[in-house]
């Protein structure tokens, strides 16, 4: 039994402490926007924010998360898809299959919080999530749009 603060709500989850946060979010909390891709923190499909920091939730055990830690998933990024990153993603039609995009959006939102006007180099360094459809060119452009550097 653990308590998780997910998108501002306290949730009781019945899991073994070594259960990855990803699977507690998906299977106990019931929020499936956070995806499983690799389980070894390589692809970033499971990216969430914990206390504002970008975290690959597939390698974070629930036992290491405190009830006071604020977890934000894609469902909690905004209530109406109105976060600047979501709006930029829509404006540029970034997603193809869309499976990795929750993680991409969470990574971009975390980047912009730290660096509101990132350079291409800073985007290169921060955006390391895998997209098999190959939407990278539009992700880069959409991060600039979200930062207000470019018009959509």
């Amino acid at each position, binding site marked *: 039994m653990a308590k998780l603060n997910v998108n501002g709500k306290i949730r009781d989850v019945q*899991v*073994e402490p070594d*259960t*990855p946060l990803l*699977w507690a979010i*998906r*299977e*106990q909390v*019931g*929020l*499936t*926007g*956070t*995806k*499983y*891709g*690799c*389980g*070894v923190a*390589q*692809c970033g*499909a499971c990216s969430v924010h914990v206390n504002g920091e970008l975290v690959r939730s597939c390698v974070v055990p629930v036992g290491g998360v405190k009830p006071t830690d604020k977890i934000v*998933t*894609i*469902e909690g*990024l*905004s209530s109406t*898809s109105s976060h600047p990153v*979501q709006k930029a*993603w*829509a404006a540029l*039609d*970034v*997603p*193809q*299959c*869309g*499976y*990795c*995009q*929750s993680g991409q*959006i969470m990574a971009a939102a975390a980047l912009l919080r730290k660096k509101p006007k990132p350079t291409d180099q800073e*985007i*290169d*360094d921060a*955006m*390391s*999530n*895998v*997209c*098999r*459809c*190959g*939407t*990278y*060119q*539009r*992700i*880069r452009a959409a991060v600039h749009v979200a930062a207000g550097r470019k018009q959509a």
Partner: protein
Amino acid sequence: MNQNLSRRSFIVGTAVAGGGLALGVRLPFGTPAEAKTAGDGVEVHAWVVVKPDDTCVIRIARSEMGQGTRTGLAQLVAEELECDWKKVATESITPGENLARKRVWGEMSTGGSRGIRTSHDYVRRGGAAARLMLLQAAADEWKVPVGEVSVASGVITHAASGRKTTYGKVAAAAAKLTPPDPKSITLKDPKDWKIAGKPMKRLDTADKLNGSKVYALDVRLPGMLNAAIKACPVFGGKLVSYDETRIAGRPGVRGVVKVNDSTVAVVADTWWRAKSALEALPIVWDEGAGASQSSATIASHLEEGLTVSEAYAFRNEGDAIGAIQGASKKIEAVYSTPFLAHATMEPMNCTVKLSADRAECWVATQNSEASLAALSEQSGVPLEKCEVYRHDLGGGFGRRGGNQDYVRQAVNIAKQFPGVPVKMIWSREEDMAHDFYRPISQCKLAAGLDDKGSLVGLHMRISGQSINAFVNPAMVANGKDDRQLQGYTARPGDAQLGYTVPNLLIEYAMRNTHVPVGPWRGVNTNQNAVYMECFIEEAARAAGTDSLEFRRALMGQHPKHLAVLNAAAAKGRWGTPLPAGVHRGIAQFMGYGSYSAAVAEVSVSGEGKVKVHRMVLALDCGHAVNPDQIAAQVEGSVAYGLTAAFYGECKVENGRMTDLNFDRYQMLRLAEMPKVETVIVPTFDFWGGVGEPTISVVTPAVLNAIFAATGKPVRSLPLKNLKLV
């Protein structure tokens, strides 16, 4: 994966695909009697539902896996329907519904870049037929000749009387009319298109931005159990035993299932508990004969095929061997390309619920009718009592087509839990260990140049594995497998070689392995474009001729190939100066009915590190239904192609795959993505594919640029294995 199972799946899938014939002549747009309930909307005919608020719901039969087909098909229907694009929605029909209505929606399989090019005609006729029915209903209501009414954006007008109505108001009356004979319909000239041919926004973006889209992996059903699965890591190996007692009492575990003769699954209340228990389960395998195989043994098996006397002569024009022997300059090379995994971001998964007289499955599939057939055959429940709820795919790339191995496995697991839905999810490691890989091959090439540097003879011998031989050996009697020679055909239309060589010999020596193979985005055009286009580059350099000019000289009889090559060269500013250290490479190829060419700008550092700065890709796909989504596919093909070129390689040791996750099987990341410029040069006289064609030219253009940079040809992949300087 059991090969016999996959073969049976193919046969059953084919039987379903032919079901329309077996069940009688289908009516082109269905009948009101069989109309599907459509909420508060009215089914005008099988393809179009109109709601009271004038929303037009367009039914979609093909699978959406990111390639944009859902939006493109809707554009084609809406164009003829003359509805308001802002009020268009789509709905995926199920294979069970299609079967019940005598396949009124036609083929559902989505592969080979066929989603639009093989259904554009009947979906447009569907849109037009609905328009004619809606106009007739308005004319009947107003008691005027239908010729006096017109429509724009779903608003019907009788100009003479000034009356207006909308699709939503006349839909119920329209649905009672008999649809017109599709042959009587005149489709619009594409020059007059207002919705099709335009860069419309995708219709399926919103729920991909907030986590609300439900992929098959996200399915949650009341009482659902979860299964984790492991097949013998050696292809062809068998399951001998497992010690269930060692995981007894673990939390949430409900059982261990022998899935088939090579596979075991653990079922638990959650997937994480199932997977953890599976990892703790002692399993004994009989690894079988395959365990002696490795990348090295497979390479020598293929190498033998390069020179053996028996081979299938796919093209034999003139006397290639004589011409090369008598040429003033002769060049030779051997190329090779490895097995590759699809690595869809969403791992294989399938949810199945079985009861006494009903079988249901929730799945991401490129061929939902093959899924239905697999569900029925494996469960023993008749087809008409089966249903497949298809979810948009988290990546397909050819992996989720005809085989349907995951459906069969999930059915076998669910059999042990009657009435309970069971979701089976493969771990990434399982996904990488049991793919149907891009086939491995090698190619030996020889060319002769005359004293003017003209190509007088070309001899290619491909030795490698056959996809068709794995799917259905009867298709490739005596090793004559044209599919493995994709891109080299003489006949126009689908995958024609764009060069005319006076003396040409192209041969194939089939060399199969114990590794399962299948179609992988672009299929054999990938390897075959590398062999042809990199060796043509070697010939051009041996001739001392510019790479573009050398190709042009061979392309006089192939104006469409040439036009696309020229378009890429122009946009890529071929022949103009580049920054110091940056070099260009060029390539062209044809596949899936479309013509592609690329120019790559590449630098190679003193340490041999390759950077691709910019790529220009030109494509003639005949008609361009959505230019922005075509550009998206081109951009994606660059990422998928470069991942393969830089990193892609499934190594085999002791009969099994060794690199089972993204830490060892690397993926291209955003930082390595070049700037991609797409040049669409549609000629409006054919319908070609989009999802696959351009990937074939990505790697050869980059390899030819590396050749320009280093002075050495690149003849094997991936680049990570090579010392370039």
